[in-house]
């Protein structure tokens, strides 16, 4: 039974906010979660301001101490599973571990819990790569492809997921990654077209592109704007727009190059 001091509370809350924001939660949700955690730790007078690239958090104990921290958020990576687990943990903190500011765990144990969520093993690589193929193949069927086209789209999806994973290791920025990804979709489809006779490329390329479409940024932009977080709403809308333009540019340039080559 301990009471977290103001520094520990700030640190833990920022860490929770960082993980949520990096995995792609909306600003409103991050603010809500951080406020919940701080209230459970016994600091109800908390103000936070969240943008897609940074968190400002100010924790006060209502007497003489106030701590303000800023966290810059880089390399965001979509991981909806992490958001779910953090939400569960915040719920547990609220209902189980902390009652009226008195916590049954100390800061180290909370940190260990967060570390555990952070390090939890994702699905094995081969499974996510195969699922990339499944997604693009099924979208190809959905937009009216035949079974042969499904096969090709599956192969394209697998190859693109593989190369995206490789590109992710190089730490290039998101925008460039989408341009390259779209270019790769078109190239792989064109290459397989040389081998497999009698397929139409349109549906295959659309299936591959659906892997890259910024659906999360788009939905988050709407939800942020609706909840009144105008800054992060517009920021995410612009992000979605830029990614869409990037995808179009990447695939367009590659299509033109292949067309110039004579295929």
């Amino acid at each position, binding site marked *: 039974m301990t009471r977290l001091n103001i520094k520990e509370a700030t640190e833990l809350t920022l860490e929770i906010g960082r993980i949520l924001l990096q995995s792609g939660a909306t600003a409103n*949700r991050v603010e809500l979660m951080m406020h919940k955690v701080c209230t459970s730790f016994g600091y109800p007078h908390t103000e936070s301001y969240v943008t897609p690239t940074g968190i400002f958090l100010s924790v006060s104990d209502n007497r003489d101490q106030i701590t303000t921290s800023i966290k810059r958020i880089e390399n965001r990576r979509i991981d909806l599973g992490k958001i779910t687990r953090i939400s569960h943990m915040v719920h547990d903190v609220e209902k189980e571990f902390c009652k009226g500011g008195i916590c049954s765990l100390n800061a180290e144990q909370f940190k260990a819990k967060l570390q555990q969520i952070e390090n939890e093993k994702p699905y094995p690589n081969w499974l996510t790569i195969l699922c990339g193929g499944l997604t693009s193949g*099924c979208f190809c069927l959905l937009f009216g492809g035949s079974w042969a086209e499904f096969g090709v789209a599956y192969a394209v999806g697998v190859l693109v997921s593989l190369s995206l994973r490789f590109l992710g290791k190089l730490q290039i920025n998101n925008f460039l990654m989408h341009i390259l990804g779209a270019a790769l979709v078109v190239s792989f489809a064109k290459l397989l077209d040389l081998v497999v006779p009698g397929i139409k490329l349109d549906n295959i390329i*659309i299936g591959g592109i659906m892997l890259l479409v910024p659906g999360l940024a788009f939905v988050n932009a709407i939800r942020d704007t*609706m909840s009144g977080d105008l800054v992060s709403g517009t920021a995410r809308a612009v992000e979605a727009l830029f990614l869409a333009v990037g995808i179009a540019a990447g695939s367009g340039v590659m299509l033109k190059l292949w067309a110039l080559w004579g295929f």
Partner: protein
Amino acid sequence: MQPFDRFTLMQFLWAALSILGFSIRVNLKGSKILLLALGGGLSWAFYLIFLYYSDSLLYSIFGASILVCAYSEIVARAVKVPVSVFVTCVIIPLVPGSSLYYAMQAYIAGNHAAASVHIYKALLISGTIAMAIAVVSSVTNIIYRLFNRF
């Protein structure tokens, strides 16, 4: 095409499978990915059914988005997953990826009129989905507040 024939069923299955793949790619675990897949399939099936009866693209997108957002608001609360996670995944089949591609293809071919038509379509579809999500989340907020008050 009839609204409830084999074609719709197959399309439902494919949409569900693609969303299953998508939810594994974004690292969701447990039995909830089956519910997500069901939601993804439903969104496309609703779209096809609306399209059959109304013959209007935007109306179908709007109706399907409304229904599927309501589905995800309910189910997400039941299985204790953040609603935004759910909505993001199930809305994916309606996202206008194909319009984007066709617009780009028309631009490359130098056919600016067709390209503008497709871009306009993509923008309208995105706007419609946005509207539907906004409507459902606002209505849910109001209902939630009413229930908490009384």
